[in-house]
């Protein structure tokens, strides 16, 4: 126990650098996923058939492919095809692209979930579709989005742990390099576990409570 | 009307946490008597009849039914007693609660086969007879989702009757139904009443209560406001609370006037 804490203290600065990288990747990938996901949702809801098909195809295919392979394709396969992305950029593209499919489905579900009566009421008042979307549908959909979106964010953070395989220096990468120096894999992996679990607790407990408060204030 | 009492409630009181649901309810139901419980929403009517077949426990008072004596409070009712009560008391719910994964006839056959170990063929025959009675024999192999509300409730009545209960409890059986479907369910209940079934019925249908019930109980503000022979209570209520309630449900336009008057008064009436 004593030596474990000593080792933790010794490597903590490295881990903190990894935390920085993990958070940056998460933030950037989340941004990509939200923007691209919203576009995908609109495309799937659009009346233009081709857009709907393209977006549906993208979502169905990407969701069925393991994240690790997507990362490898973004990093190694694209490089062979002449598009060389740095590790972090490949990670952001891979994770962002994957989570865009998931966020797109969340957005689509939330928009469809808004009561039909709301749409009809907006139409009956003579609002154009875009105004109805902005002023009536989206504000209501927003609160249906929060819980699943938070849930996926917590999955995204966990999935960033795969980027060490494409040489990005995140928490997991630091843990691996530490354990190859001191040959104490359990101790070093547990430290990473503590950090990831803290992220998870913050997201699942505090955000869940905040959401509950928001919802309570609205009802 | 015979004189043997089958349900006897004495000073029953029920709370959910700190919220009072009803207090001091005392009531006797005789064999073949039809008791209708009416009153404003939130008066504790539904919870009261759920306490009678012990779907909910109650906190104070005693309840005697079918030879069992239950007391309020934490004490657990023995499983065998509970089982006996549930087997001999039938219940029909406001929301029907048919089993969605079973067909109409399977819904009716399940309890006799599982609880009374009735052979399948016999259970089937009896279920068909019940469906004939409510006019739905052609729906026997359909899932409940495909039925109208009125049909679902008639099946739910069959399901309860299949256990040959000695007492039937109805918890607002028509309040979830479209107006044009209310009649078919009330018809089935009325028929039971004529055949001498002992019934407790929570309802909002005043005209029906007057026609079918021997006794009417008006519950308001968590207690019994008035109780007596149906015509007497509904036509010339004695207590002020009962009069108030009845004037509201029987003369809606009067209630609207009262509402306007009350609002004008509360705004100071200075216009």
């Amino acid at each position: 126990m004593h030596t474990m804490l000593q080792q933790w203290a010794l490597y903590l600065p490295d881990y903190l650098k990894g935390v920085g990288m993990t958070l940056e990747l998460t933030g950037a990938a989340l941004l990509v996923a939200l923007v691209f996901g919203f576009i995908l949702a609109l495309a799937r809801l659009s009346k233009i058939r081709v857009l709907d098909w393209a977006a549906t195809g993208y979502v169905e295919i990407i969701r069925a492919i393991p994240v690790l392979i997507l990362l490898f394709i973004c990093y190694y396969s694209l490089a062979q095809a002449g598009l060389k992305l740095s590790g972090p950029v490949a990670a952001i593209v891979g994770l962002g692209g994957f989570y865009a499919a998931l966020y797109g489905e969340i957005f689509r579900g939330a928009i469809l979930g808004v009561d039909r009566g709301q749409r009809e009421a907006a139409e009956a008042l003579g609002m154009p579709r875009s105004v109805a979307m902005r002023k009536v549908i989206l504000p209501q959909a927003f609160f249906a989005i929060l819980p699943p979106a938070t849930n996926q964010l917590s999955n995204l953070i966990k999935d960033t742990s795969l980027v060490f395989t494409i040489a990005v220096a995140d928490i997991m990468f630091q843990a691996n390099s530490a354990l190859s120096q001191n040959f104490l894999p359990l101790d070093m992996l547990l430290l990473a576990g503590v950090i990831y679990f803290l992220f998870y607790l913050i997201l699942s407990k505090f955000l869940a409570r905040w959401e509950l408060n928001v919802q309570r204030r609205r009802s | 009307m015979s004189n043997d009492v089958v349900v006897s409630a004495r000073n029953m009181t029920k709370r959910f946490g700190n919220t009072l649901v009803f207090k001091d309810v005392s009531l006797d139901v005789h064999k073949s008597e039809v008791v209708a419980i009416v009153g404003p929403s939130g008066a504790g009517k539904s919870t009261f009849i759920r306490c009678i077949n012990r779907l909910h426990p109650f906190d104070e008072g005693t309840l005697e039914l079918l030879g069992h004596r239950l007391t309020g409070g934490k004490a657990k009712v023995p499983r065998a007693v509970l089982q006996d009560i549930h087997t001999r008391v039938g219940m029909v719910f406001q929301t029907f609660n048919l089993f969605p994964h079973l067909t109409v006839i399977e819904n009716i056959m399940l309890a006799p086969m599982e609880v009374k170990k009735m052979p399948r063929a016999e259970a089937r025959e009896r279920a068909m007879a019940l469906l004939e009675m409510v006019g739905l024999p052609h729906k026997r192999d359909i899932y409940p989702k495909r039925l109208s509300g009125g049909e679902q409730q008639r099946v739910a009545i069959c399901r309860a009757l299949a256990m040959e209960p000695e007492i039937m409890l109805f918890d607002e059986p028509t309040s979830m139904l479209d107006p044009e479907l209310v009649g078919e369910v009330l018809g089935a209940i009325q028929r039971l009443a004529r055949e001498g079934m002992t019934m407790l019925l929570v309802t909002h249908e005043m005209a029906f209560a007057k026609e079918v019930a021997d006794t009417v109980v008006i519950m308001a503000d968590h207690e019994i406001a008035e109780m007596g022979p149906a015509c007497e209570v509904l036509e010339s209520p004695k207590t002020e609370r009962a009069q108030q309630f009845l004037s509201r449900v029987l003369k809606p336009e009067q209630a609207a006037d009262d509402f306007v008057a009350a609002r004008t008064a509360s705004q100071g009436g200075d216009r």
Partner: protein
Amino acid sequence: MHVALHYLGVYGVGALKDIALTIVSTILSIILGVLAAAGRLYGPKALQIAIAWYVEIIRGLPAILQLFIIYFGFDQIGIHFSPLMAALIWLVAYGVGYAVEIFRAGLMDVAQGQREASAALGLSPSTTMRKIVFPQALVAMLPPLTSFVVLQLKNTTLLYLVGFADVMYEARLGVDATNQAGPLYVMAAVVYLIISLVIGRIGMRMERRAAAYR
């Protein structure tokens, strides 16, 4: 392109291993998951809390970290697993964490009115569970169970990192040998895509059959 074709055979063998592991771990996870869900809902308080925390830890830690702790971490305290053993233990440990929640949510999804109606008819709690609650819960559980199987399949991609010779492992070896990262990784993606779609199709068919009454 023809380079990739040489790898079709080894990919096939690797895929079969992934499929076998997915099936075995799913079955074990479901059995243990049902027991754990029962404990979580109806067991003694201490057991409920223990299972709740187990679920939190499995859901809170990255998959790869869990696998590494079992394979590399346990090695530090003298417990050594073969790659296959570590893979199986991890997939089941992970699967149980998710299966518990699927079963719990499924059982709680059944309306309270169903239990009341069943009790009012005199059906015993065990009959109520068998005849009323479980058949309905199963229908609610099928969609998440399908996603769960796909998740387990995708989790097998991580196993090459502990030296388990599956599709990913062969892909890595192939890339090292031929430098053909493009076709080889895309082909791995296609293998997983096809298996995922097949699982999804099977799940959908089961759902349609089970939910005929809805």
